[in-house]
């Protein structure tokens, strides 16, 4: 058997990591999200809200037992990769991601979700036309993170370009977007918020904010969390105390005349997984 080239070895390593991360993310919900759902259930006294959360717990268990995706909207895979200095940044990485997504689509299986925006023709394998999105940054270790993103929550995302003097209006803007979204994004949701950068940069920060596990919140995160949960939208929009499981903000520097604020809404099925890439 001929020896693999460096390109082939890198491509294969990324391919295997992508499939493994997708399998983990699509079937097993992260522990921090499970814990937040349990805390929500303990606080909830509305019978409809409690039965919605009970269905969610039964679903999480069923997915693990049957080894099938948590949600039929297996999303579009969003991929985050960190590469250390000794790994070459070449096409092998993006090709490996596509190989991994194709394998995951047939094996796990995932729903083929990627279509042409106008003809709506399905590419059949969750790849093509620039998909999946791959974000590469330098790092200490070679890791690959997948964030499969469903459309129900993605569709209620928002961007607003505030005036620099309007930082006091951010909480109201976010809360209003969640109010308008109602039950559509499958609450209880997690709110990823990007503040600063450019218009496009803020939306990227908002999604990256979702990668940080749930836990302690800063003052603005807590303020938004409290306001959103006071709305009473509840699990699935059927009423209840828990509309939001957590708020995550990521900041970036911005133009002195700008204050971009972006919201990326994540449904309760907050799927994410990180694996180390076995290379070199």
């Amino acid at each position: 058997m001929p020896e693999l080239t460096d390109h082939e070895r890198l491509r294969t390593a990324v391919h295997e990591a992508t499939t493994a991360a997708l399998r983990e993310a699509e079937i097993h919900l992260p522990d921090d999200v499970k814990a937040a759902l349990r805390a929500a259930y303990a606080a909830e006294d509305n019978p409809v809200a409690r039965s919605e959360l009970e269905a969610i717990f039964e679903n999480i268990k069923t997915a693990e037992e049957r080894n099938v995706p948590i949600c039929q909207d297996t999303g579009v895979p969003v991929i985050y990769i960190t590469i250390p200095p000794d790994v070459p940044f070449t096409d092998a990485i993006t090709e490996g991601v596509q190989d991994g997504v194709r394998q995951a689509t047939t094996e796990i299986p995932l729903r083929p979700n990627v279509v042409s925006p106008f003809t709506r023709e399905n590419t059949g394998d969750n790849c093509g036309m620039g998909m999946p999105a791959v974000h590469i940054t330098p790092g200490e270790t070679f890791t690959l993170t997948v964030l499969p993103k469903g459309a129900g929550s993605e569709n209620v995302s928002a961007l607003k370009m505030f005036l620099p003097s309007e930082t006091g209006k951010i909480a109201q803007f976010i809360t209003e977007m969640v109010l308008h979204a109602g039950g559509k994004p499958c609450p209880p949701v997690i709110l990823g918020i990007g503040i600063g950068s450019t218009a496009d940069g803020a939306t990227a920060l908002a999604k990256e904010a979702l990668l940080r596990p749930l836990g302690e919140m800063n003052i603005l995160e807590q303020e938004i969390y409290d306001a959103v949960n006071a709305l009473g939208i509840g699990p699935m929009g059927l009423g209840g105390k828990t509309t939001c499981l957590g708020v995550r903000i990521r900041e970036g520097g911005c133009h002195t005349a700008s204050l971009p604020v972006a919201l990326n809404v994540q449904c309760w099925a907050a799927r994410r997984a990180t694996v180390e890439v076995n290379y070199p």
Partner: protein
Amino acid sequence: MKNLSTPLGDEVLTLKAGERVTLSGMIYTARDEAHLRMQEEGIPFDPKGAVVYHCGPVVKDNKIIAAGPTTSARMNELSGFLFDAGVRALIGKGGMGDIVREELRGRGVYLAFTGGCAALAASRMTLKGVFFEDLGMPEAVWAIECRELPLTVAIDAEGNDLFRDVRMRSDKIFHKIF
């Protein structure tokens, strides 16, 4: 808790918003593209007493792998012809608009199934057939037999709407906070 079976009849008229029910029998998935196709070419199943499920399942080897609900509001403007043909219930998530609430009055109900609960749904489903498969896996009409699907009556045949009630209450709270 009431246990409903398809085909549905006048029993749906007595259901009340907020009530928990289970549903057994045949259901048919349909999303945006299937609604448009059915309006052009006709409904490919017997619509009398039928149940339409807003869902694009994951299907493999003729088995339903995952089949939770999709956001129903996308079908707000597309659903009237189904009730005219005899459809008695829609299943979905997130609720529907004023148009559908009025269309359902005296005829049928909207049932909410917990969004994201695709593995749970699939564990109670058997695939029976497919129409319009050329639309692709998410958009095709899948004929599915289900067993005791747990649902909440969200819009009843008298115009009561749990989602609207929550929305109106939340709106008031929002204006109190800000």
